[in-house]
């Protein structure tokens, strides 16, 4: 007998807003703060003072609804003149050990406490001492840790810069002693040339898991809006086409999450929590440097190799790149547009995520309230064997959707979803500009989960980095890491023959990392700030 779906009530005034609602801002500043022992008492006061100024779920979710409604109402779909600047605060493993007594911090997750240098090789980073290993990280290198991360995110650049300057100044002058509090600033901005696209040129952040639950009360708004009509066969399990509903405990501590191993998506458990951990979430930060010319060259080389296969015939670098990502630059999924980009499909946020891998897609029945029109794009065929969208494609590696995996039934993938909050950093690559290829650019990657082991660590170790998963078709070339070893993919040609392509270099390199805990408002006041 299967369990019935239910909607937990989410404490909207306690949970920091970036976790479940997402700030969704064009400008993000990340202030990694390190505090000397002598400044800790003052720093606790600073935490107490800033806690009420942080943005919590109620405010962020309300704003996001208003913003989306205004955008839909605008004539051209452009961003409405609504602006907000939000802040959230997260504490590192080093930080909790310095701010809390051991009997308290020891209640937190061990992977978080150990920090990202401890499991670096597990998630595929080169060994310490090797080029690109943790000792070379710009953020979070061994012996160069930080205590907290203050996230400042807003729609208006000047407002964000002003807030960043004010808070940096306040922190640096928290005590009279020089350098007792230091701030490492990392920036992220939507790319003006291609908003919503990362530096390789692909639209990012399209597919996020839906989150079950209602905000604040049993009649409050859903955490994730439901757009399907109850008559749609996916209605009970999906918020939108291709967006499965996960229980909030996958992301926030103290709420139901799917029981590991269960075949029933509504079979849930609640992990025990204490006031310190309840309504908190673990935040993974990765500073990912992207080698844009390297990616372009790799796509060219891959295209040349694919083109040598008679069944493939001439293939472009764009086709090869789409094979690596699983989407075209517009966001159109390869599985729905196998041979060329379809910008209109990419612009349709619902159609571009309406697909599975093992089963064909179908035309969704949208609820009347959603005011979403059905699309006319060709539906996706079932692609269980990876004939259309390669198994090694990034979007398929980290989210196999309905496909069975080495973990068994596809429903288990719900146990390994994360809420991504990435934003690009650095200037666009400009081949006409001398030195542009050597500039530092990439993604400030952030993601929330209730367990780093089940979330980020699992996705990297078990799926992205595994050349065996699935069917031995190779690595996730986009985010997968394999130390300094060569990586490869195997792509199926139209006649079913296999083309093996090797990639001698990493195209995305970790240049900073942090494991953090994003506490509740009460935990900040009663534990970290007390």
């Amino acid at each position, binding site marked *: 007998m299967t369990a019935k779906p239910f909607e937990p009530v989410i404490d909207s005034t306690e949970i920091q807003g970036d976790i479940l609602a997402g700030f969704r801002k064009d400008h993000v500043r990340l202030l990694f703060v390190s505090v000397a022992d002598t400044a800790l008492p003052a720093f606790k006061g600073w935490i107490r003072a800033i806690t009420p100024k942080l943005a919590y779920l109620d405010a962020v979710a309300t704003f996001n609804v208003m913003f989306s409604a205004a955008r839909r109402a605008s004539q051209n779909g452009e961003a409405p003149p609504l602006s907000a600047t939000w802040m959230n605060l997260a504490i590192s493993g080093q930080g909790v050990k310095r701010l809390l007594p051991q009997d308290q911090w020891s209640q937190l997750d*061990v*992977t978080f406490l*150990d920090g990202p240098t*401890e*499991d670096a*090789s*597990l*998630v*595929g980073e080169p060994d310490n001492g090797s080029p690109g290993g943790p000792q070379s990280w710009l953020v979070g290198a061994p012996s160069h840790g930080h205590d907290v991360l203050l996230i400042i995110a807003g729609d208006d650049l000047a407002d964000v810069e002003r807030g960043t300057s004010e808070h940096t100044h306040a922190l640096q002058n928290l005590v009279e002693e020089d350098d007792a509090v230091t701030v490492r600033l990392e920036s992220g901005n939507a790319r003006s040339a291609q908003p919503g696209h990362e530096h390789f040129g692909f639209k990012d952040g399209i597919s996020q898991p839906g989150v079950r639950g209602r905000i604040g009360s049993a009649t409050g708004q859903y955490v994730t809006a439901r757009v399907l009509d109850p008559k749609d*066969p*996916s209605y009970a*399990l*999906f918020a939108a086409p291709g967006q*499965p509903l996960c229980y909030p405990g996958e992301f926030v501590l103290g709420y139901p999450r799917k*029981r*590991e*191993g*269960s*075949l*029933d*998506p509504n*079979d849930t*458990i609640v992990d025990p929590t204490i006031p310190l951990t309840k309504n908190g979430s673990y935040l993974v930060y990765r500073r990912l440097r992207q080698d844009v010319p390297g990616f372009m060259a790799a796509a060219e080389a891959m295209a040349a190799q694919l083109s040598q296969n008679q069944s493939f015939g001439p293939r472009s670098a764009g086709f090869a790149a789409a094979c690596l990502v699983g989407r075209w630059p517009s966001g159109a999924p390869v599985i729905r547009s196998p041979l060329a980009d379809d910008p209109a499909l990419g612009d349709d946020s619902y159609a571009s995520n309406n697909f*599975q891998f*093992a*089963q*064909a897609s*179908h035309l969704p029945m949208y609820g009347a309230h959603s005011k979403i029109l059905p699309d006319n794009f060709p539906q996706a065929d*079932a692609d*269980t*064997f990876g*004939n259309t969208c390669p198994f090694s494609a990034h979007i398929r590696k980290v989210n196999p*959707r*309905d*496909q*069975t*995996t*080495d*973990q*068994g*039934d*596809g*429903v*288990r993938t719900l146990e390994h979803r994360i809420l991504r909050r990435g934003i690009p950093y650095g200037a666009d690559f400009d081949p006409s500009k001398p030195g542009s290829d050597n500039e530092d650019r990439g993604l400030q990657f952030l993601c929330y989960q209730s367990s780093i*082991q089940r979330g980020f*660590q699992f996705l990297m*170790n078990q799926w992205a*980095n*595994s050349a*065996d*998963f*699935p*069917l*031995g078709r190779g690595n996730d070339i986009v985010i997968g890491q394999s130390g300094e070893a060569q990586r490869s993919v195997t792509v199926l040609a139209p*006649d*079913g*023959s*296999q083309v093996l392509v090797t990639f001698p270099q990493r195209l995305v390199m970790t240049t900073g990392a942090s494991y953090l805990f994003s506490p509740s408002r009460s935990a900040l006041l009663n534990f970290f700030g007390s």
Partner: protein
Amino acid sequence: MQLSAPGNLTDFTTDEQKSDWSNKLSTEIDQAIAGISKCTAASQYVNPAIVDVSAFQRAPIHWVGFPKLLYTQFTTKQQAYAAADTPSVVDNGKLSGGRTIQDEYLEWYIHRDQQGNIRAIDFTTETQKYWEFLYTANPALAAESYSTVLGVNVNIKDISTPEGNYDPYNRFNTTNGIVHLVQVNNTLEAELDIAAQSTLPRLDDAGNVTNDVVSCKHCGTVAPKDALGSAGRNSDPTIAQMVNAVAANGCLLTIPDPVGLYIQTLDTSGWSTPAGVKLADCWKIVRGIPAVRATFTLPTGAQLSDFSIGGIPIKYAGQIAEKISVFLTAAYGPKGAVPLPPARPCSGQAEGTALTKSTSRRMTR
């Protein structure tokens, strides 16, 4: 062609034994094919002893070696590991302990010292079918092979029932060691059966073609418990879905020689070892190409908890099993070689419905 022993093992001492094994395995495969013959005019599953599959493409289907079902039965992973590590007990011919729940075609035996500390762990994917054959062919050879595998002296009597038959629950394969799989679902027949049955196109309850076939009834039967495999395992759903997906292309397919279940790899990323200890010196493939047996041996003076994965100390053998991939190989020929039979309902009720283009819309069963 003559089919090889699993893992290309070289236990056989006579050509007759080699030939007999090949014939026996070929018969097993034929039986699996016969199981679907009433549901398709031309079976897509072929016998590699009869059909030349040397030009077929290979696809390794792999899964995690730790039993997933245990995650759902216990509150914490530690409890699941502990349950899987429970020592075997044989009482009146009935086996109990961790081996009865190690159901991912990977079973293990833990060697402990007098203090109860783990000193070594033997992992195997060898099937009972193979060892029964060895015993039947030559009991002395079976005992000798036991001795070779275990490094201790094993006599025929040690592995025989009082009636003189092979005893799979003998102490050298249960309480005192491990030579082959004994969990009831970890059988070669099950592997062949699910592979052959999964070639058939199936319809879900809504009448749509589905490749989510592990829970479908066997072709032509309506027995309530007669599903192709267990949806709750890591292995069965993956094998069933992948085979079904390949077969949907109209390919001939098979599990090629050497037919068997294999240890693919130990994922060593993120391991920390005691000072001066190399993981490669602890983890050894000791039998078969591909591997059917591996051993994790602790160096003198080291405890298992001195090893960690991603900073988490190892306490249980099950944590290592969780890092072991088990696999079988599917081999498939060109697309469109065989016309697809009509899709049959998973329920096993009404049959012969015409193949439809639409497919299931469910994310899960």
